[in-house]
């Protein structure tokens, strides 16, 4: 079993078992492939010149509910406004998320890991995105749904795809909680 993350003088340290690192690597890759845009960035030289190559005039709200949760509407109750905003910002948000997920995939190649503040932040973001996708696949919509899955904590409890996913979700949740606790401790020491 992985060791919990710890805040140390050298940074935040943690260690995954090889099997856990492989599993997490596969999950990170899955989320990366979900976020990779279907269309190439705008090559309009004027757009690039004014720093707006992030524009995506074709963007629409994603069909996949998990991707929609990763890239949510920024405006509620006004689909036109939400879409206009999405076209201005979605591509760079996708790129930011992919960057965090790729960075994390590299970090977990070493064990033990020692993370600086920035790496820890990207790691926590990536774990959060993985959990959002798993939660969508597990149809976690309420706090009760989440609690219901909480009991599945051991491979003995796994007898189908859903309980396997729940086990994975609980593992990633545990890992993120341990990382965030270490980050909060480091933040407290900085102040």
């Amino acid at each position, binding site marked *: 079993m992985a060791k919990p993350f710890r805040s140390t003088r050298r940074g935040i340290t943690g260690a995954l078992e090889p099997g856990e690192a492989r599993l997490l690597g596969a999950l990170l890759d899955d989320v990366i492939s979900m976020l990779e845009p279907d269309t190439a960035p705008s090559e309009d030289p004027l757009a690039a010149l004014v720093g707006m190559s992030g524009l995506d005039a074709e963007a629409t709200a994603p069909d996949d509910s998990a991707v929609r*949760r*990763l*890239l*949510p*509407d*920024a*405006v*509620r109750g006004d689909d036109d406004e939400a879409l206009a*905003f999405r076209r201005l*910002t979605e591509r*760079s*948000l996708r790129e*930011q*998320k992919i960057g*965090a997920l790729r960075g994390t995939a590299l970090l977990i190649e070493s064990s033990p890991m020692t993370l600086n503040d920035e790496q820890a*932040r990207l790691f*926590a*973001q990536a774990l*959060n*995105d993985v*959990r*959002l996708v798993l*939660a969508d696949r597990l149809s*976690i*919509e*309420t*706090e009760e*749904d*989440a609690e219901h899955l909480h009991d599945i904590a051991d491979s003995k409890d796994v007898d189908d795809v859903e309980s396997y996913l729940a086990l994975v979700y609980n593992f990633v*949740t545990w890992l*993120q*909680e341990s990382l*965030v*606790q270490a*980050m*909060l401790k480091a*933040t*407290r020491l900085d102040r």
Partner: protein
Amino acid sequence: MAGMTVGFATGTDTREEVRTEEKTDLDQPWVVVVWNDPVNLMSYVSYVFQTYFGYSEAKARTLMLEVHEQGRSAVVSGSREKVEQDTVALHSYGLWATFEKAGSE
């Protein structure tokens, strides 16, 4: 959870300003609203409020609990440009955030 009453002074001031003046859209303060969801960890949401907005541990916790218990919380206010930027930043953290005119709720 007791004794956590800090943090809403700024929000209250700006809202009153909106009510008392007839201003153009551009002048009106906007807010970023964070919505509850069953996935994001309470510790993580507090961490984001502390590190991204620079809020104290107590203020971050108050806002996080407001999201958790009331389903939503206006966590920051400002110009339209600022709240747009903050909303996207919160999306990069995976929080479920939207922006709206202050006082729309």
